[in-house]
């Protein structure tokens, strides 16, 4: 598994421990690299926006973009690369169309702050904002197959995900 933007390695470490995967992380922040190394992970200090071209096609079973897609400058090419490098890709992102977010803009006239979008406008790593529906549309536009999806709010969300999901996770492939 290749975790793109693996941060301090918590997810990878859990995957190695619970699912016994062969894991590799890519991360741009030096401090996070030290934490990954401390967890015994294979990690490469690199910018995923420029570094993915070095990986061969389908050289990993899974590429992971966990909460990373909306933080890169160019999500489109990064996602295309992730789909190229991994047989399948797992993407997760905060859903901007959650009803709480909608209400804050509609009634409060202010950019929303929610549990999955906890940052203030002036201090946020998120560069892009998308909803569940946006993502469905994007996949259709780019001929990406959605194999599985999971929506999380207060618990598992099954009905009206675009409205009720705070975070969504997709298993996609090309």
């Amino acid at each position: 598994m290749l975790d793109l933007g693996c941060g301090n390695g918590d997810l990878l470490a859990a995957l190695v421990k619970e699912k016994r995967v062969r894991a590799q992380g890519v991360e741009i922040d030096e401090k996070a690299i030290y934490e990954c190394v401390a967890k015994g992970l294979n990690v490469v200090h690199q910018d995923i926006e420029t570094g993915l071209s070095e990986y061969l096609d389908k050289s990993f079973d899974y590429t992971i973009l966990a909460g990373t897609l909306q933080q890169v400058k160019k999500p489109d090419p990064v996602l295309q690369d992730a789909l190229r490098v991994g047989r399948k890709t797992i993407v997760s992102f905060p859903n901007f169309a959650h009803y709480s977010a909608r209400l804050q803009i509609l009634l409060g006239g202010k950019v929303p702050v929610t549990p999955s979008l906890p940052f203030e406008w002036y201090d946020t790593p998120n560069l892009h904002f998308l909803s569940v529906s946006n993502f469905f549309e994007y996949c259709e536009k780019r001929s990406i197959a959605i194999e599985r999806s999971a929506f999380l709010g207060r618990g598992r969300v099954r009905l009206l995900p675009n409205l009720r999901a705070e975070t969504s996770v997709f298993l996609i492939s090309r």
Partner: protein
Amino acid sequence: MAMKTTEAGAGRRSSVGESEARLFEFARPPDEMRLDSGETLGPITLSYETYGELNAERSNAILVTHALSGDAHAAGYHRGEKAPGWWDDMIGPGKGLDTERYFVVCSNVIGGCKGSTGPASVDPRTGRPFALGFPSVTIRDMVEAQRHLVDHLGVERLLSVVGGSMGGMQVLQWMVSYPERIRSAIPIATALKHAPQQIAFDEVGRQAIMADANWREGDYYGRAPPARGLAVARMVGHITYMSDASMAEKFGRQQQQPAQERPDAGAPTKKFGADFEVEGYLRYRGDNFVKRFDANSYLYITKAMDRFDLLSSRKLSEVFRGLRARVMVIAFKSDWLYPTYQSQEIVRACKLAGVEASFCEVNSTYGHDAFLLEVEEESHLLRHFLGGIRG
């Protein structure tokens, strides 16, 4: 870069204490070693030091490989000496290379001048120093000699081989020459091959030595050595090991104290004497180097570095094919002598060969010297990386 560490060993920065060099002789005729050049060399002596204890399974041995001006004395204090080994900060109880867990070995490369066979050694066939009669050596030859030492120590598989700069080249060579003999490798501040700029700096150093009238085509033993030339070569070297930022911080444009003028400075040098502290520093370093290093060794070793080319005519993906060891590549941000892109190329070669590789570019302003100075970050990376290496 300041870093907090909470590991148990971090606080105990004690030294290995007293260390002493040992000698290992091999390749006695008729079993001379065949070098890359086709020539043979034997007998060969390697000077080496060890720190820590080899465990019963012989599974905890780490080979440390030194850089251009390094030697076997990587840690501890020789009797009567005030300055410790060149990597004393990294090797010792509780340190990055923890001698309470690992058996650390460091040997002087062949072609060197600190106890191992080199141009200053006596040629048994003539009874006089080899000088330029010494055969050309390559990084691969250096590794081959080390392999003999590792065999002699009874180690089947090294837990790791680690080194910076030219030491890093030796690490890379181990990965190619003896992939089955290592469980992990840590090449630091190094490259798959020298770029023209690196070769250029080495050439300036060599030209300075060869331009010294005392060099006499390498035949200076027993006479005044080419001290001025070697000192200048070392001055150039020092500049390449620092960065603009580290030099500015260290020297500014501070004026030198008159007392530091060289004792043999006459009137002609006053016009072009050392006005600034950096000049005095370089002169001091150059003069000091001459006391402990052989000019011919400088020629042989820099040539070995310039000729090193792991790629040769292969594709990048072929270089580390079949390597099962885990690799940790380390580069330092301000190192303009061995810039990060060269380490990234090593990482790329690993990825293409399916090798499990990690890479970190440590934020540093020290320049190439960083691999000797950024102790905290390097210790953290080495300690944790090695801790995860299983048999």
